[in-house]
Each structure stands twice: as structure tokens, then as C-alpha cells.
């Protein structure tokens, strides 16, 4: 897998090549998270030849379609079961993310695994994803943001030093300490 970035969700359907003894081989469908359909199809074969006696040369892809989020206007909790390789072994993990789309949650997953565990996208295999109800959340961070009366201030607001500035000298030196309190 190359640089993750914004993941997309693909449904890839493939089967073994048809021949005289098996004119209608069984088709298999996989949901793959990848940045583009080329990588999605490649990942399909990566997994398929682990599970079945089928590979790119002996099989054919029947369909590769991008799945688009049905409701991208409401925030949902996503639970993601994954398997990843660390420097000394491979482990299972379960993580939860709050996002508006499943692909957003998966992108967050890749960024977080990279940040917290130095895991490259190639070492991450997503086993299963699902939408988790507010009551069934297991991880503390997303749990903080569910509920009807979530309320918190935005303290110590640090402005981006580069925003709106033209010259390096405009942001390197200033005669006033910046204010970070905006109520």
C-alpha cells in the first residue's frame, strides 16, 4: 500500500478463471479500503490468494465499484477491528473513531496507527468495521463526545503563524504577545 491519505471504499468481486471442468466458478466479493481502484484490485488479490487457491494470473476481477457513504451528514461511531505488524510481531487491535463517513474513520485509523505505533499502511489489515451505538462504545476518547449535553470551551487558541502573513518578517517578530483567550 502506498501513502494512505483519504481512503475510499471499494467492492471488488472476482473469481477463478472459467474452464471446461468448472464453467461457472464461485465468485467472491471483498470490501477493500484503498486510495484508488488500482490498489483496491491489487489488495483483492493479496487477500484472495491467502484465503483461496486463486491469484491474479489464475483469476479474473468481475467488478470493482466505489461504495459511497449513504449518510455523510450525521456523525457516527465506527468500531474497526484490525491486524497489524509491529517491529516484533503481529497483533490484533480494536479501535473506535467518530466520523461522518466510514472512509473518514478508516483514514483516521491509518493516521493514528502511524502516529502512535509507527505502523505503515502496508502493515495494517482491516478485518472488520461496524457502526457502534453510543451505549456500546468501549474506548474513552469517542465516549467523551457522545450525549446531548457535551460542552467544552476552546482554551489557549493558538493562531496559525502563517495564516494571512505575507513576509517571513511579518510573523517572526511582533511587538505584542499574541492573545490566546477568546472567551
Amino acid at each position, binding site marked *: 500500500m502506498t501513502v494512505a491519505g483519504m481512503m475510499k471504499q471499494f467492492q471488488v468481486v472476482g473469481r477463478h478463471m472459467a474452464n471446461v471442468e468448472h464453467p461457472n466458478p464461485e465468485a467472491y466479493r471483498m470490501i477493500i479500503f484503498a486510495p484508488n481502484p488500482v490498489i483496491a484490485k491489487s489488495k483483492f488479490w493479496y487477500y484472495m490468494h491467502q484465503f483461496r487457491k486463486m491469484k491474479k494470473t489464475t483469476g479474473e476481477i468481475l467488478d470493482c465499484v466505489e461504495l459511497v457513504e449513504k449518510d455523510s*451528514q*450525521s*456523525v457516527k461511531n465506527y468500531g474497526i477491528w484490525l491486524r497489524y505488524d509491529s517491529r516484533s510481531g503481529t497483533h490484533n487491535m480494536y479501535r473506535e473513531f*467518530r*466520523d*461522518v463517513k466510514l472512509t473518514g474513520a478508516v483514514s483516521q485509523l491509518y493516521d493514528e496507527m502511524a502516529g502512535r505505533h509507527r505502523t505503515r499502511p502496508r502493515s495494517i489489515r482491516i478485518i472488520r468495521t461496524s457502526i457502534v451505538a453510543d451505549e456500546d462504545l468501549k474506548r474513552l*476518547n*469517542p465516549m467523551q*463526545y457522545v450525549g*446531548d*449535553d*457535551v*460542552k*467544552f*470551551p*476552546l*482554551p489557549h487558541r493558538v493562531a*496559525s503563524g502563517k*495564516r494571512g502573513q505575507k513576509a517571513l518578517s511579518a510573523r517572526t517578530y511582533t511587538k505584542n504577545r499574541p492573545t490566546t*483567550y*477568546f*472567551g
Partner: protein
Amino acid sequence: MTFTRFMQVGRIVLINYGPEEGKLATVVDIVDQNKCLIDGPADITGVERQVISYTRIALTDFLIKIDKNAKSKDVEKVWEEEDISGKWEATSWAKKLASRKRRVSLSDFDRFKVMVAKKQKAAIIAKKMAA
């Protein structure tokens, strides 16, 4: 330092950066510690329902009572009842933004008129101070 403006459902925010810069929006749901779901409502302020980062918004003093993840129409109804647009235009924050915008859009002739007006004002004040 006590905080009076909170990130919460119903908070009116001003967008500071991005394609919707300068427009108001309502917080409809909180995603996590870095971003929230906002809605104009689209028919009033022109901001579509979207996820936005806290670094791009500024909290205002206005708060409306809406349900979490309320529909655009319901947000619109409460917005109209409270007349948030009117209340916002009356704040000195909004007036300052408007005057800054006006200043940037002045033509050379407008700037000449401003110079003349400033001179007249200074002359009146000087006369009053001398007397």
C-alpha cells in the same frame, strides 16, 4: 479566566478561513476534539452542512436551542425566531468586520473623500479645542 463561550450544540460560530470565510454557522453536532458538524442553515447564511475544524472557526456569544443533529429546516426555524442574523449585525464585532471590508473595497475617489472628511473633522475639533 472563566470561559463563557463553549463549543456545544447550538453555538453560533463565525467561519474564519476557507471558502466560507466571514459567514455564520450553527454547530449541529460535535465530532471530536478537533472538528464539529456545522450547518448554516444553508438558506440563511449560505453554509452547507459540513464538518469543519475548530481552527477555522471562532465562537460567538450566541447560542440557540436545537437538538443534536437537527435537520436544516429546524435550525432555520429557531434561527429566524431568535433573529440571530439581526442580533449579529448589531454586535460591534460584526460592525468592525463590515467596516474593514468596506475599507478594503474603497476606490481611489472614495479614499479621497475619506481624506477630505477627516480634515473637516480635525478642523472642527481644533476649533472647539481652541475655544
